[in-house]
């Protein structure tokens, strides 16, 4: 059996990739996808833990997370579209009116 730590390390790597994506990429869509990646890495951890602990709570959680992620995407896209309307761009750097 593959040890738990392998899963955890994998998910940690995924999570880190997600963070780097969020912080590094300027395209809001990509940022959003990176966030999804982070959520999915969490899902992976949940499932792994669930399997190793032998209870189902974690697996149930994963379903909820998927639903929430979908909802978040809906709202997020709407806002990104709105951003595009104003700036004719979806670069995160363009949203820089509010500062200081």
């Amino acid at each position: 059996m593959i040890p738990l730590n392998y899963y955890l390390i994998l998910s940690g790597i995924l999570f880190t990739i997600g963070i780097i994506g969020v912080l590094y990429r300027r395209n809001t869509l990509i940022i959003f996808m990176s966030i999804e990646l982070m959520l999915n890495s969490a899902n992976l951890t949940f499932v792994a833990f669930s399997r190793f602990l032998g209870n189902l709570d974690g697996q149930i959680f994963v379903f909820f997370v998927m639903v929430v992620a979908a909802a978040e995407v809906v709202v997020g896209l709407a806002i990104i579209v709105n951003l595009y309307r104003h700036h004719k761009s979806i670069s995160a750097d363009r949203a820089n009116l509010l500062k200081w």
Partner: protein
Amino acid sequence: MKYVWLIVFFPFLGFLINGFLSKFFNKKVVAFIAASAIGLAFLCGLVTLVKLLAYPPEARSIEITFYSWIKAGGFNIEAGFLIDPLTMVMVLVVSGVSFLIHIYAGEYMEEDPGYVRFFVYLNLFVSMMLTLVMANNFLLMFVGWEGVGLCSYLLIGFWFEKDSASNAGKKAFIVNRIGDFGFLIAMFIIATTFHTLNFKVVFEKAPQMFQVGSGLITAATLLLFVGATGKSAQIPLYVWLPDAMEGPTPVSALIHAATMVTAGVYMMARCSVLYALAPFSLGVVAVIGCLTAVYAASMALVQVDMKRVLAYSTISQIGYMVLGCGVGAFAAGIFHLMTHAFFKALLFLCAGSVSHALAGELDIRKMGNLHKKMPITHITFLSATLAISGIIPFAGFFSKDEVLFETFMSHHNVLYILGLIGALMTAFYMFRLYFIAFRGESHVEPELEKHIHEPSWRMALPLCVLGVLSLIGGWIQLPFFHNLKILGGFLSPVFHHAHEISKMEEASVSVWLEGALMTLSLIVAGLGILIAYKFYIKNPELPKRLGEKFAGLYKLLFNKYYVDEIYQMVVVKPLYNLSEILSIAVDQAVIDGSVNGTGRSLMGVGGVLRRTTTGYVQFYGLVMFLGAVILLLWNLF
């Protein structure tokens, strides 16, 4: 005896009536109220004297308390009056001279717009002065002490539109305050030592608690003397008195000659027991008094303003009184105080009469040969001049001679010689004044010449009365004959303790010695008069030549040794500059600077910190992520 408070009350009532109701009166009524208030006080004083004389001499010290004034813990001040011979002498002198001067001022101030104000102040002054001399404790005395200082301030600055007058008033008050500083601290010492400020208690306890020469008592008496130097214009605090001549002349006569300035002497006489316990202080007092007598006389030699000459003369004469106290002859000091009150008040009133006639002129170089047109003024002035110069049988002779005699008897030989030199100078400058102003050629401006006139009876009467007193005032204390020392005998219960402590022998001295010394002083006085006569009648060019020959000395004397300037430079200016520096460097720069600086630096930090909110969402994310990393590191390691 219960009704002694009336002595203080009447002048105060006069002050109140004139102060509040004067708009209903005309000038005559105002003057009448003011003068009669003093007159009544004088009468009450006489009645009290009669009652006091009914007691046996040892019992002539009656304390009447009215109410508990300040009570804080064990410290209790009972306000009340102490009636004893010393008080009575002072009360009668003060109220008597004041009464005369009030009458005089009634006419003298006639034309002044501040007529009412003048009498209000004057009445207040008298009531304060009487409080001072009648008080039964240091603190109440201090009330009078500062109260007369206040009135002096107000009256010196009476013509407040003149800058010189208001400056002089302020100067007088502040210099007096410096003296009061000493008085206050002396009171603290006494209060903490004896737990009371009551005269009787303090003077009773002091010899029991302390030996002669005790440091504490020395400190207290020296500090008290600081107070006296302020009030009685002694070195180094005499500087206010010459300037005080800015006030109206009756004021100079009353306050700055007869009464207030002698308060210091009175106070020392009152504290004779304490001084007797502190021989060192007595020495200091004697030296300062003697030095002042000579020093002030030297300045009087060359002054040309009549009142200023008199002012320096006053300082000098008080110096003699202080000298008297300093050698332990308190009675002599008081005696001189009394006679001085008569003749110096008279001199000032004469000066007033002259300036009245000359439309306010006081420069003696613009006078001369007045004796014909102003016979009464002339005669009375001469009487006073003889008195102050110490010519027998005028009052000043007896008193000054007693002071000098006692000085000699207490083996202060140097002081005695200095005193004689002072007496020489006194005779000289007084007769210089007399000769220049009343004799010789007239230097009066021609248009004024016509207007010279004798004053009316209201001004003349006080002159005459005081003139007579200057003559006979000394006869209550005659030398040689023990029985004829009426004043001394009367006062002796007061100074009894002091004499006991200092073990001063009242043994009879050789009549020959006394006679010889007396003759010596007479010779000295005569010499002074002679020199003056030489200088100013016989050979009027001589003084000028002398002045040119000793130009430096002359200038030094004429400018009063530059003491005012030195004080200004050494004390006043530096303090003022210090406050300016403090204001800018400490108040504004350091304190306010640090207060505002804290605010400003916080604002600065705020200005920097707000820049961290850059507006870039990913930067925010980065900060949050780094925060998370730090948190993790913190928690896990």
